[in-house]
């Protein structure tokens, strides 16, 4: 998508991705007056049957990427809805068994806010602190488990810092205690291999627009054996095995299916390419003073690099980098000027949390893009630091932590 030189370089693939042209081509078959259109729920004519067949084909592609059975894939309007359905659906269904849930402070808002909603309803939620590298410590998780814990929700790949959690180990710990395990895989599907036929995961959320599919489309994996039961959150018509009502948006489903099919085919080679780009980016920046990678460098999804540039204010840096489309964290919270809650949870101080930039690369990022990015970032950081009294003080060897600032 960076074909026009006057447009910023897009390095915000964790926020959303452009739709792959191949995906658009599939979607177009189900859009427009000359296309195959129809309500998949229509039972009395071929328009409906054709639409339904297309949605089932897409369901197959999605199931194939993650090693699931098609009957375990429930379509939703996006990962936010999937997270809401999984968390509230399981909590409500198991209310009599227990009302305690465990999650992590670095989860996406869709998970955290669903948990907060449950707290308002009287549930108890434990929000685990991650380690400084962003990973959940298994022993701490086990220690938080109680007899009345019904659900653990831990994301696979973090949207801001890109770290990959060990969902196999977490899942096994949940199985031992017969606790249902939900994984938000919005940022990992198609980027990290997932095989649900062997993974001890009960529920998994997916998003289409994070892997070159359309917005407004997601899915929830609901394990069949043993069967995970949950309470529907959207009622009316009993679509999707009664777990999610509403007309299936045929073209969007088809788009998601095609995106998942392509991801399965290209993930391995694409990851290699992205790791090369990520290394190129880091190699181009790491010799600068006072730059820190946020989150574990090894246990990390290929396209993500989250860096704090100490003594530079993140918002100013974003402003100075107008030729780059990047973010300081999640798009969903980017309107707020609060430092990232994810970085805070890692134990980063406010200054470092405030000075972070998330670079997320993807299918259309080129080595040339990274080259330009390095140049821009280096010059912007240097310029901003030149203007910063704090940077001067730091260079003079003053320990900023020791200064007692006078109140105004």
């Amino acid at each position, binding site marked *: 998508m960076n*074909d026009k030189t006057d*447009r*910023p370089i897009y390095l*915000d693939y964790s*926020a*959303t991705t*452009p*739709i792959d042209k191949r995906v*658009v081509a599939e979607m177009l078959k189900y*859009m427009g*007056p000359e*296309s195959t*259109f*129809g*309500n998949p*729920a229509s*039972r*009395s*004519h071929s*328009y*409906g049957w054709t639409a339904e067949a297309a949605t089932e084909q897409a369901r197959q592609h999605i199931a194939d990427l993650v090693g699931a059975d098609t009957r375990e894939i429930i379509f939703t*309007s*996006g*990962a*936010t*809805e999937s*997270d809401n359905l999984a968390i509230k659906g399981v909590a409500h269904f198991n209310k009599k068994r227990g009302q305690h849930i465990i999650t992590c402070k670095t989860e996406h*808002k*869709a998970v955290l*806010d*669903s948990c*907060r*909603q449950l707290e308002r309803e009287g549930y108890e939620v434990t929000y685990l602190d991650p380690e400084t590298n962003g990973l959940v410590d298994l022993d701490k998780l086990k220690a938080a488990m109680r007899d009345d814990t019904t659900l653990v929700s831990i994301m696979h790949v973090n949207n801001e810092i890109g770290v990959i959690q060990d969902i196999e180990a977490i899942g096994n710990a949940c199985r031992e205690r017969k606790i249902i395990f939900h994984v938000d895989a919005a940022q990992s599907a198609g980027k990290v291999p997932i095989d649900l036929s062997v993974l001890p995961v009960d529920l998994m959320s997916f998003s289409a*627009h994070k892997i070159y599919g*359309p*917005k*407004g*489309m997601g899915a929830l994996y609901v394990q069949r054996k043993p069967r995970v039961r949950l309470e*529907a*959150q*959207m*009622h*009316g*018509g*009993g679509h999707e095995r009664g777990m999610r009502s*509403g*007309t*299936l*948006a*045929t*073209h*969007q489903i088809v788009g998601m299916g095609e995106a998942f099919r392509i991801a399965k085919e290209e993930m391995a080679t694409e990851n290699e390419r992205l790791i090369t780009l990520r290394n190129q980016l880091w190699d181009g920046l790491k010799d600068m003073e006072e730059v820190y990678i946020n989150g574990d460098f090894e246990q990390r999804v290929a396209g993500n690099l989250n860096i704090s540039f100490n003594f530079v204010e993140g918002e100013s840096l*974003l402003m100075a980098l107008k030729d780059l*489309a*990047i*973010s300081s964290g999640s*798009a*969903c919270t*980017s*309107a707020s000027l609060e430092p990232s809650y994810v970085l805070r949870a890692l134990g980063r101080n406010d200054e470092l949390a405030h000075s972070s930039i998330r670079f997320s690369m993807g299918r259309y990022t080129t080595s040339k893009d990274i080259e330009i990015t390095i140049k821009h970032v280096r010059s912007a950081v240097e310029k901003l630091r030149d203007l910063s009294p704090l940077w001067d003080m730091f260079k003079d060897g003053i320990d900023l932590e020791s200064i007692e600032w006078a109140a105004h």
Partner: protein
Amino acid sequence: MAVYFDHNATTPLHEKVLEAMLPYMGSVCGNPSSLHRFGRLQRQAVEQAREQVAVLMGARTSQVIFTSGGTEANNLILKGLSTDPDVQRIAVSVIEHMSLLEPAAATTCDVDYIAVNEQGLVTPELLKQAIQKDTALVSVMAANNETGAIQDIEKLAETARETGAWFHSDASQIAGKQAFSFEQTGMHAMTLSSHKLYGPMGAGALIIDQQLPMHSLLQGGSQEKSLRAGTENVPAIVGFGMAAELAAQELVERVDHVSVLRDVLEKELMKFDVVKVFSQQVKRLPNTLQFGVQGFDGETLLMELDRRGFAVSSGSACTSGKTEPSHVLKAMAVPNELAVSAIRISLGRANTMAEVERFIEAMQQILGIKSSVVMQAASL
């Protein structure tokens, strides 16, 4: 392909809607919540669509909340309002779509059902009978998806207001088929669906009076005034907006076109003694004609019509696959044996008089064959 007479189930995308959506499926990418240029362009597109939808429905842009579709909008109004401690009892008409009846039943509220008369109308008297002292919300659909019967929403909203209840109307079927205004009808909330008016599937809206004490159903982001979390489905919203604009532009033309076809269809079908048109005495959507065929089974009729190249349905797509008579016709006291023979024709802008004529011929064949068999059997 078969002739498509099922526009109340879903409509094909308008060619101009597709055109408007394409850039947002191609080179214009970004998350509307992102602060960079890509994000801002997406945000602008969403806001333009909000304006287009508001204009079609006579609402203010600030009143439009985008959802994933009509079902979600219905869920949102019912469940989002019933979390308010003052909302303990709601009244909904018996002929509502499943996407309203089911979430109503799923709330913690007591639900009263408003009856309809034999023409499928909720009269102010019937509404008053259903309203209790503590009824906080009344919901009556503007036009029925099966019969096409149009309610006097202005009057019903007024009746509800007088008792101090909020009034919601599912306008999914009427929007774009008949002039209809949020403000003029005096309601507090209205449901819309994009794919019923030549827009894409995957978008809808709840138009709300902001004094409603609403809560979001989806948590995880402050999109849509914190009433609907989740990344906006920008291409679908853009398509919905364009569909709304086109509906406003082409309304008169569309109404004229389908009512001519529908009236011919109705006149010709009425020539069969066995055909009985539902809600015939009341104002109906200009594109909709639902009828029963005495002595016939609906499934057989649908199969025969499919074989002859006509895509029609018995009623709602969302309940199709069930062999029970429609709850709408039941509520209208249509005898079971007639209700199970129901066929719904819902026309659209691309349908032609030639198609209508062919349909009538097909019906002649189907009904003629059966009639002659019946006569032969009788003469034996």
